[in-house]
């Protein structure tokens, strides 16, 4: 793993094929995620965004192709090596997926207890830190998931995903179901975390504002593969009709105008 820093690919998907029975979701899908970037994955409903995410994090075995993550082929590793890789990433599921029998703080402490074997006091301090960093007030720690609003569940899910200081963060529609203010705060939070913790982020999203503010690059999923990947400007240049509809539609234009072309995405994006 001695590639030069900037160009290192954290995730390399090659020729991926996933299917449910006879139904093929993806075929010949290639995708790279580079170290230190926020990659947004977009696509229509049913284009297989979440399936791609599940294939990468080891929940849906592909029927063909390879997925290399941190340079290793996850599905070919032993159970023990898989556990080690899993500790290097954090996943935020769509609905938060908090364990409903545990409080928020216990949820965040769960991976710490399980993997790091730290004394209780230290684990509690770390959990408090992550909860606070995710933008939750300290009293949220003692709440049960059923007592949280949608936005708070997402933040708590993020706190748990960050519990082990992962190098790689997977987010499945992080801003879906949040009000615009909450969504904007969440975008800022992700960008900040990436900047200060050096995270690499793989984000499935529908949110055009998130794409513009947070994502360095965008991968467009359609026709069972990645039809375009790059900064928003580059992706739009490909001229694919779906991409035109997506970014050129009324919502796409509105998001573009409110940010100014390029915006923050341009400032942080690297040359392609």
């Amino acid at each position, binding site marked *: 793993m001695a590639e030069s820093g900037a160009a290192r690919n954290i995730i390399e998907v090659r020729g991926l094929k996933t299917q449910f029975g006879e139904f093929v979701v993806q075929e010949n899908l290639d995708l790279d995620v580079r170290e230190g970037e926020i990659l947004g994955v977009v696509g229509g409903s049913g284009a297989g965004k979440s399936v791609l995410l599940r294939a990468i994090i080891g929940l849906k075995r592909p029927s063909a192709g390879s997925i290399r993550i941190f340079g290793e082929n996850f599905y070919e590793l032993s159970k023990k090596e898989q556990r080690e890789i899993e500790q290097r990433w954090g996943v935020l599921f769509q609905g938060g997926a908090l364990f409903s029998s545990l409080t928020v703080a216990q949820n965040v402490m769960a991976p710490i207890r399980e993997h790091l074997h730290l004394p209780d006091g230290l684990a509690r301090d770390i959990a408090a*830190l992550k909860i606070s960093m995710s933008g939750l007030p300290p009293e949220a720690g003692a709440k049960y998931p059923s007592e949280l609003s949608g936005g708070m569940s997402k933040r708590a899910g993020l706190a748990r995903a960050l519990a082990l200081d992962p190098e790689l963060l997977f987010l499945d529609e992080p801003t879906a179901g949040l009000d615009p203010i909450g969504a904007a705060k969440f975008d800022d939070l992700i960008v900040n975390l990436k900047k200060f913790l050096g995270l690499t982020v793989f984000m499935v999203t529908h949110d055009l504002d998130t794409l513009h503010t947070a994502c360095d690059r965008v991968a467009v999923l359609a026709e069972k593969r990645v039809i375009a990947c790059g900064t928003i400007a580059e992706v739009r240049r490909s001229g694919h009709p779906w991409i035109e509809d997506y970014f050129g539609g009324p919502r796409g234009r509105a998001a573009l105008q409110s940010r100014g072309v390029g915006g923050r995405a341009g400032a942080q994006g690297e040359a392609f």
Partner: protein
Amino acid sequence: MQTAAAAGFEIGLEGGFLKLTARGDWRARFLGPIDEALRDFEDDSTGRDIIIDMKDVEKLDTAGAMVLQRVLRSCPERSSERSRIVGASQAHSELLRQVEGHLAPCSVTPLHPNAVLMILDRLGQGAVDAYFASLQILSFVGLTLSTAGRVLAQPRRLRLTSIFAHMEEAGLNAVPIVGLMSFLIGAVVAFMGAKILRLFNADIFVVELVALSVLREFGVLLAAILIAGRSGSAFTAQIGSMKIREEIDALRVLGLDPIEVLVLPRVIALILMMPVLAFLGALLGLFGGILVAWSAMDISPALFLGRMQETIVMSNFWVGLIKAPFFAFAIGIVGCFQGMEVGGSAESVGQRTTLSVVQSLFLVIVIDAFFAMFFLEIDF
């Protein structure tokens, strides 16, 4: 992957400051062994200013940064400006700055008062809960009955498809298990009787023993117990998960009455099927008894049935059967009521399902006891 030395630190004195020299890999996984020593240091450092030297720290994550900030803050207020961290690299100081605003502790579990108070609290809460739960279930019974009255006045609103579906699921599909259990219980009763009656040379009384117990009690009771475990719990889980996914609310806004759509068909289906199952249970219980009497005691089936006709009056059969619809009503109502009470989390579905089975079994036995006293009084 190059390996850094695990986290460590040394303590020294430097110009009136306590100096903590940190070194190695200060990531969360390596902090476990030094945490206690660090906390001791924090406790002992009272009144003195602290300098943390970080130039030998090779790796740092948010947990490590948090711990260092915690140590730094352990010094008293007045000297906090003079305590500082030195020698941190650019990236490390950024991390330290990031965690700085997030050091407030947070509670892990809801606050609990002391144990005695908690027990008293639970006791009181339990009594109040039980009171309101019985009020609620009574009002649910009333609601269901009034809805039933309304629907039966306009029989077109009766949901026949749904009723038949539940009759199949809760009734027909339960036939094998109810039959097998009743058969076994009938056989067991006969075996027990055989052993004791033989002592008195009163073998033939096994007929009364088996027929009375199976017809009056075991047939219907077993059916009720199995249905409570099998269908009452299913009702709770079905309605409960519908509640969680807001399907019940959706029904209401669409102008459909959940009691009419969900509860009534289930309760009616149970009331219709329970007597059938009880009858079947009684039949197979007798069959089990007859088989044992024949094989273990040489009482032929013809003799058994002949004596049964002579000594057991028909009312015994009706006593068993009359109870069936009451049991069915209790089980159906409790199952649906608990389903409607589900709220919030998936865990609540589990809790309510357990409660549903416990309560319906409790009610079945209580109702059975009342019937026993009642029939005793009227000499039936």
